[in-house]
């Protein structure tokens, strides 16, 4: 069941009052392409928040410890580490550039003091270790404080170096590079619940890796037809089950989701379950297939449900029922009459992501005009909010927004024709435990929190 939150997690997204907390990124109207955020991900504990951008950089924010003297001020996220994860490359065989854009970041569960994350561009996945250094050794025998070697003949006494505190330094170092396993563009990575393996998926194949081994990966799904001219369907997203390490799902451009069990065979070309909603013949159009293409698939934290995002809606599926979703939430149904124009300007191919809250009682996804939508699964209420600089006063409550689909526009409503389709929110993330959300609006990262606390 979509239970109300247990423990410290309040239920739902709508009984809450969402407030502006922070915004990161340049204010300029002139957005540099490289600064466009392409992925956002909280760590498993929520204390770290990572973003990747089109320029191949990763920026990690850390939540400050709460300040007892200002009990109303929640822990803020400040920059913890910034590093260049991927560089642009050139494929000489095909004479094509390989973009450095970070497609996905996934955190590994924390096992020691250091933090690990996987970041990927179209072709190469990298494992990064982020570690803190707050001490340094002083009093070496063989070298001076400034690093110059001392003449060994002049050393008359030995001393033991001592550790002295220094300003905190956060270092990111690439520990593994997983390359040359994908002919097509990587769209997903997912860490397995065994914490030892992970999958990477491109348009036609899914590979399984061991985190320690970079020169080998196992191909577990391959949908490439023998004759490429027969290609009519591609893989759009893939994810491992959060608890069952042998189970994964992948979605397709035809709006289907396949669940595979790696125990059944080495090559998971035959699915164990096949999820597809029958098409509604009355709304069939030439754009039906395109808008049914699944842009994101996410398991619930419980592992009992999964959520898919297609162009106009978000669907929640019960893993035990393949015939249709248990819930369908309309994101921006008013766009249905505009599909031809959206096809012409390519917006119809935008890939929106979606996410669950910690208790699986609410889901969130983005839309256009810097709007994003939240759906409460228990109360069945939904709300549209906006990420904008105008609503950026500290702790200012976000006002629900409304889009007028046609007819007379009420005060405060935005008409469909005045929506800004260049302001799209494709990437959002929800803190794993608390009601804190991160919303990427082009080159700005907005952080909102609920007022209740």
């Amino acid at each position, binding site marked *: 069941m979509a239970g109300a939150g247990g423990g410290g997690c309040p239920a739902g997204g709508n009984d809450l009052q969402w407030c502006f907390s922070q915004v990161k990124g340049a204010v300029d109207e002139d957005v540099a392409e490289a600064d466009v955020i392409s992925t956002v991900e909280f760590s498993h504990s929520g204390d770290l928040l990572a973003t990747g951008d089109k320029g191949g950089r990763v920026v990690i924010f850390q939540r400050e410890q709460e300040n007892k003297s200002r009990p109303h001020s929640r822990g803020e996220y400040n920059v913890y580490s910034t590093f260049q994860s991927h560089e642009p490359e050139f494929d000489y065989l095909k004479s094509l550039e390989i973009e450095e854009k970070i497609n996905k970041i996934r955190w590994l569960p924390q096992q020691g003091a250091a933090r690990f994350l996987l970041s990927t561009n179209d072709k190469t996945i990298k494992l990064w270790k982020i570690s803190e250094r707050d001490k340094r050794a002083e009093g070496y025998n063989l070298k001076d404080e400034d690093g110059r070697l001392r003449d060994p003949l002049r050393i008359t006494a030995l001393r033991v170096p001592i550790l002295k505190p220094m300003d905190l330094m956060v270092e990111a170092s690439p520990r593994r590079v997983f390359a040359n396993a994908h002919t097509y563009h990587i769209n997903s990575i997912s860490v397995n619940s065994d914490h030892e393996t992970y999958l990477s998926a491109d348009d036609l194949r899914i590979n399984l890796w061991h985190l320690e081994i970079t020169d080998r990966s196992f191909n577990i799904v391959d949908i490439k037809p023998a004759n490429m001219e027969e290609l009519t369907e591609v893989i759009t997203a893939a994810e491992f089950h959060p608890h069952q390490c042998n189970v994964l799902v992948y979605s397709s451009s035809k709006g289907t989701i396949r669940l595979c069990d790696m125990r059944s065979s080495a090559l998971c070309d035959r699915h164990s379950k096949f999820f597809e909603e029958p098409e509604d013949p009355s709304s069939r159009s030439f754009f039906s297939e395109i808008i049914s293409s699944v842009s994101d698939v996410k398991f619930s934290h419980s592992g009992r449900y999964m959520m898919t995002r297609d162009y106009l809606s978000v669907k929640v599926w019960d893993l035990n029922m393949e015939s249709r979703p248990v819930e369908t939430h309309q994101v921006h149904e008013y766009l*249905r*009459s505009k599909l031809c124009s959206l096809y012409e300007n390519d917006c119809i191919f935008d890939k929106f992501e979606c996410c669950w809250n910690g208790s699986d009682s609410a889901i969130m996804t983005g839309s256009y005009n810097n709007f994003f939508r939240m759906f409460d699964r228990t109360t069945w209420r939904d709300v549209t909010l906006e990420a904008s600089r105008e609503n950026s006063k500290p702790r200012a409550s976000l006002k629900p927004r409304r889009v007028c689909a046609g007819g007379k526009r009420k005060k405060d409503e935005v008409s469909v024709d005045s929506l800004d*389709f260049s302001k799209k929110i494709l990437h959002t993330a929800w803190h794993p435990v608390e009601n804190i959300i991160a919303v990427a609006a082009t080159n700005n990262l907005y952080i909102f929190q609920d007022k209740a606390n």
Partner: protein
Amino acid sequence: MFARGLKRKCAEDEEASPAYSLQRQSLLDMSLVKLQLCHMLVEPNLCRSVLIANTVRQIQEEMTQDGSWCVPVPQTAGRASRDRLVSTEILCRSAREGARPAPDPGDPASELQVVPAAQAPGVPPGGVWDGDGPRENRGSFHKSLDQIFETLESQSPGAVEELFSDVDGSYYDLDAVLTGMVGGAKSGQDGLEAFASTAAPPPSAGCKSDLGELDHVVEILVET
């Protein structure tokens, strides 16, 4: 431009309405242009290409089923619908009529106000969405449609060559279109061989059998 997304007529409707046919035709043209206008700097998005190609196929299948262009044509009872489809003259008439709604830069904008946000200078040219320009793109779209329609006016056998003359022949290999570059889906050696074969002159009768589905659509466009 369109009041609603194009809807397929129900099966009882033998003759699709002229307006519907025009809309369908311009959607087909738009789709073909989209397939052609690939980023050649970066590998094109395979998912997008596949979805567009599937849309083209759907339109083409429906057109084949309808078997009519809804243009006043001398009744050709006894002629197979396929022949009608490949007749250039008929296509030109409907195409010219169909040309009006689609290439007009002003029209689509009125329906949907796409405000080009200030975009970075480093965007690759010809980028359909993240390029700035819905305006720029419509301009080039306009030009491409015109080019296509102009060449279709001449019914000479050379029409095929003219249409493709300034376009790499490899565009019309669906494989190449989908993977952006001929060698994309193949191993190194195959890639080079395939590359060499598409460096050959634009599709002639001998190459027709190699071009597959997209070729079928191309056949519809030009007299072969």
